[in-house]
């Protein structure tokens, strides 16, 4: 039985249209469970994810952000995931410096055939973030009603 009033992390997952979003769909078709705390935003490519979106998510009270794209070399747009990987490496180390632990941010490669990997990744990520507790570091108090 789930605990009453248990802490539920807020997780934003950016998924590229061609691999990871389809991987998430496959997890659904295969009825593979992962926590409902994960909310997916579809983007054309992992390289579409602006660091601003991730900052915004943390400001608005997200507890973890995960970016999923095609495996290196498999990007629909050839090089998009390489850009994403570089940008996120930089962003995540800066966020770490600002006090957003590295465990709250992640880049993961999930192909359209990896429904099981998608579900496993989300299960693992949610439990990691849940263990860290609420993100207060970047939260913009003005956004709270």
């Amino acid at each position, binding site marked *: 039985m789930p605990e009453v009033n248990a802490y539920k992390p807020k997780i934003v997952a950016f998924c590229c249209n061609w691999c990871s979003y389809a991987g998430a769909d496959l997890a659904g078709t295969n009825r593979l469970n992962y926590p409902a705390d994960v909310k997916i935003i579809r983007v054309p490519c992992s390289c579409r994810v602006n660091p601003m979106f991730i900052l915004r*998510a943390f400001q608005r009270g997200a507890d973890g952000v995960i970016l999923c794209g095609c495996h290196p070399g498999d990007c629909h747009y050839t090089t998009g995931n390489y850009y994403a990987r570089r940008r996120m490496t930089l962003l995540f180390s800066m966020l770490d410096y600002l006090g957003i632990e590295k465990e709250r941010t992640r880049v993961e490669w999930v192909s359209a055939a990896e429904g099981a990997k998608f579900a496993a990744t989300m299960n693992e990520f949610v439990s990691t973030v849940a263990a860290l507790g609420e993100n207060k570091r970047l939260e913009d108090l003005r956004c709270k009603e």
Partner: protein
Amino acid sequence: MLEVANIREQCSWIHKDKATATEKAIILGRAAIAKVQLNAPLTAGESPVVKRALVIGGGIAGIQTALDIAEAGFDVDIVEKQPTIGGKMAQIDKTFPTLDCAACILTPKMVECSQNEKVHIYAYSEVEEVKGFVGNFTVKIKKKARYVDENKCTGCGDCTTKCPMKNVPNEFNLGLDTRRAVYIPFAQAVPKVATIDPNYCNMLKNGKCGLCAKVCGAGAIDYKQKDQYIEEQYGAIVVATGYNPIKLDKFEEFGYSLSKDVVTSLELERLMNAAGPTGGTLLRPSDGKHPHTIVFVQCVGSRDTSGCGKPYCSKICCMYTAKHAMLIREKYPDTEVYVFYIDVRTPGKNFDEFYRRAVEQYGVHYIKGMVGKVAPRANGKIMVQASDLLMDEQLHIEADLVVLAAAIEPDKSARPLATMLTASMDTNDFFTEAHPKLRPVESPTAGIFLSGVCQGPKDIPETVSQASAAAAKVIGLLVKDKLTTNPCVAHCNELMCNGCSSCERVCPYGAITYSDKEFRMPDRTTQLRRVASVNPAVCQGCGACTVACPSGAMDLNGFSNSQIMAEVDAICQK
């Protein structure tokens, strides 16, 4: 306006607890509503299609693609850097697994190219510059000076027998014999026109000689000819740049540079060809004697992770080595033939049967093991040291001829060409296909198609099927009068653009160009500023530029910054 909240696959099918699932569904719906409020109407653009195709490379891949496109009624140009089309297949003696003569099946196709009025051949030419996008490429072709007027030359060959510069290495026979400074590569060359080699011609170098001009009955020799530049418009471009065997100077253990009797398989093709330097009799290049013991070494530089060679399998070597061994045993039954292999790989129709014939019917000695050292001896023989892995013993074979199955690599011209075409390549310089299984003959760059070994190692049957497949894709593009473009493309807010080129650098498609535009300033003056513009026909909508843009001028239709922000807000809302 349409947005989809994915509450089936990404909510109801995965969450068992109804209360939390409902809560999530509400949030997903909220995010979709937030996004749809910011949707703008999307209209697909149109761009015209030039009904002409360009094929780069005139080997069997390029020839087959060009002929198939021409058959559908479209004009097609072939650009070939050598003086004649034909490529590697023209140098090959026999083809596996049928053992029919390569020239007999290739040259009719070459002639068909020259006689088909839809096909135009730019031989001895190279692509200099490519501009434009799918349906509308502008290509600058450099037609190198032959110093012979193509329209006047009859191909009689008088000049090629009179030229006094006799000792020019003949590249068609891989340097195994010589040609003159004015030459026709081989008897069935297309176009059959002489070419003067400016590196050896005395007249062009020192202004002394002029013999070929005197003997030419047609008056075709023109020492003052210059390189010409031609600009043409194309709707589609097919890359068919082919391959070369790798250089073997890094493989000292095989003694390629130490003895003339250590040859590559392609050189052996010429040595066995009736039109080759020995007239088809298999003779040692060093002393012209019959070899009695021949050793073949497979995987020279293929499947080599040491860094000297190539990590991939060159795919064709197992089959052509079986072919060579079989042909030699057929013609010279007194010859002993040894083949050293790591694995014998013969997937393909009638391929394994062919290999078995070499072993069982023709008595070729196949030995599993790698050759350690090839060393020429004072008595003219070549000592081959090898290990037999199955018998677990060291072997020493005194050979008369050693044949190395050198790995194949993409032609050196492919890399600069890929940059010109903004087509992607892998680490081995093979062109990348749009999808390895489902779109194997298209490049990820729209309007660029791949044919032959430039995409990956393959034999002649595979090359020809891929060439026809590429032609079918080109025809599918050229029959359209207009192309509908994906409306979810990037656009630039020119008022915010500061002309920094960040977006141009990350664009994998070359869709972003810069131009100077006049802007009216608040004080009623005008200012000239460099701003980006996106070509919607080329942009594929990945959005890399939107993130690279430091001023926020770039945005993506359908996935705008404000829309994704709104989704983030909706999801994180308390």
